[in-house]
């Protein structure tokens, strides 16, 4: 039996330069400029290396509008064997809980699996919560911040995780979920050959109709306990003294400030 690995990836804005129009309060952002969440590249690479070690089958899934298929294509060209998109109007407005629940339903829909791999976090939400919440919904263990897969087989994995002040090596039974720390492998580039190979590949689109749980109140905005009340620009909280002048003057001013505040 081949190991089955499911990787979860996400399309994110390419730039974090989001601004609020001070008059209308409308979010200004360049929405056409998107890319794969950089953290997910390390997750994909981890999956591909496990595939090379064990001959696993790697699937890539994402949730989003039809245009999000571009990250799935990228995953296929990098080395994924299959890809599917979770997309439905009914999933709109999902917060962490509803998103995690939706993806967990997708994974159940996909049948048996051994390992789910997520990036550590995304660059747009920055919460790092979806992976662990999905694991809970799937009733499987999760290991966060994995930097190394030490042993992999059908029954269990041995992995090393990195925390701020320490590292841990643990053995975890499959099926399980891993979130991958960035920077411990070098994600491969999409291959031209694979691009040719997958030219006619049809990415499966999965909607609520195919899920086991059909209760609409568990998805999208209805299934989201949190709601955004308000968005605003960070406040300026005190007076700022702007200093201009020649480099000599500025350096002298700086010494003066440091002396005044008794640091020098």
């Amino acid at each position: 039996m081949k190991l089955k690995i499911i990787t979860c990836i996400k399309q994110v804005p390419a730039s974090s330069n989001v601004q609020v129009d001070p008059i209308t309060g409308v979010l200004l952002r360049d929405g056409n400029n998107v890319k794969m969440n950089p953290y997910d590249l390390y997750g994909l690479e981890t999956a591909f290396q496990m595939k090379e070690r064990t001959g696993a089958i790697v699937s890539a899934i994402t949730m989003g509008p039809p245009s999000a298929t571009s990250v799935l294509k990228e995953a296929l060209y990098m080395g994924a064997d299959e890809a599917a998109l979770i997309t439905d109007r009914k999933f709109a407005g999902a917060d962490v809980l509803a998103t995690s629940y939706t993806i967990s339903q997708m994974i159940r829909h996909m049948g048996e699996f051994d390992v789910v791999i997520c990036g550590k976090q995304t660059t747009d939400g920055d919460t790092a919560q979806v992976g662990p919440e999905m694991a809970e919904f799937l009733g499987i263990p999760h290991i966060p911040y994995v930097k190394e897969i030490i042993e992999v087989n059908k029954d269990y994995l041995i992995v090393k995780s990195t925390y701020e002040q320490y590292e841990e090596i643990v053995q975890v039974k499959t099926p399980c979920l891993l979130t991958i720390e960035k920077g411990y492998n070098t994600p491969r580039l999409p291959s031209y050959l694979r691009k040719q190979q997958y030219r006619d590949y049809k990415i499966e689109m999965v909607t609520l109709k195919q899920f086991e749980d059909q209760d609409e109140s568990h998805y999208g905005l209805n299934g989201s306990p949190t709601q955004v009340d308000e968005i605003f620009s960070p406040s300026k909280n005190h007076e700022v003294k702007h200093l201009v002048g020649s480099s000599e003057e500025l350096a002298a001013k700086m010494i003066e400030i440091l002396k005044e505040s008794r640091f020098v």
Partner: protein
Amino acid sequence: MGYIKVNNEKVTKEVASELMDICPFNAFEYTDAYLSINASCRVCKLCVKKGPKGVCEFIDDSRPKIDKTIYRGIAVYIEQRNNKAHEVGFELLGKAQEIAKKTNEPVYAIVIAKDASKIVEQCLSYGVDEVFVYQDDAYEDFNVETYTNAVEHFYKKYQNNVILMGSTPQGRSFAPRIAARLRTGLTADCTMLDITEEGDLLQIRPAFGGNIMAKINTPNNRPQLATIRYKMFNKPDKVVPFGKVTYEETGNLSKESTIKMIEKIEKPKVNDISEAEVIIAVGRAFKKQKDLELIEPLRQKLNAQIACTRPLVENGWFDNRLQIGLSGRTVKPKLLINLGISGSVHFIEGMKESELIISVNQDPNTKLFDVSHYSIIGDIYEVIPKLNDLLKEIGVV
């Protein structure tokens, strides 16, 4: 709760393009003269508020409201390792006490450990009303499965209103597990917290990749869960203990786990920038790693700790433990000097509480200047050498 309905009879090409411009999430799709909303919609309702009248409509299909008066108590999970509490837990007790005053709720501490005695004493000295202790040999190492069972037990028994946790690596792995188990919301990395009279927790955090703040609430689910970074809030003053201690029966809680600890490895200690009193932070304006030598005289004079922004960690110039910001450390030194940093919201949220902030940058419009006390508009490659000359002159190096 609800969704946006588009009244297509009012949609023209112009209306469609106006709405597409308004929507920050690119959720509108206009094909064959039909305007539809795709899965990117976050139901922010901007199209209803700012768009042409009557085209977009918000359809409310809310669930029945919960009775919020049942849920009482602001609980803080006190993270520990080797029976020693992480300081962030005590900082959260301070914030919990502050917001609990508004709703007149008790403040609880939850401790899960092999030996909780010392932590219980500390919690009491910080003035909590009650400490709930899950003490068992099985809780020696943090285990996300067994610890989640304990917090689930706590919530089901006490039906409390809020659970706060530190957004440490452990907390960020643990909190989502609890949120999913209890089917409730969770807001990560809050930088501010407040509460309404009704007991709704207002969770404020940077959003949409960073440059704006979002105020989030959990209107119809309990408990309300949030994680908060270390060093965001102050520890409360010590008091003469008055709180109660309740040891929970742990015998019936499942200790089974599919995760087995094989080895624990301590990382070599680096100077922790969270604790530093004087910090010099460097940013992308430094072109080469060697140029960092420029700041050496100032560093020596101030006996400062060096810290950096995310790009310099990505360059490999610094260990990520020296990074300031929400994806690094939050710092609150007495003096922070920023050199060549423009200041993303993530950086700013990680340092804005510093007592004295001096920033040097050649761009007068840099965002970091807004939170600085002194903004020095100049090129670091020109100002710092002059500064070094002066430092030499006054004979300090």
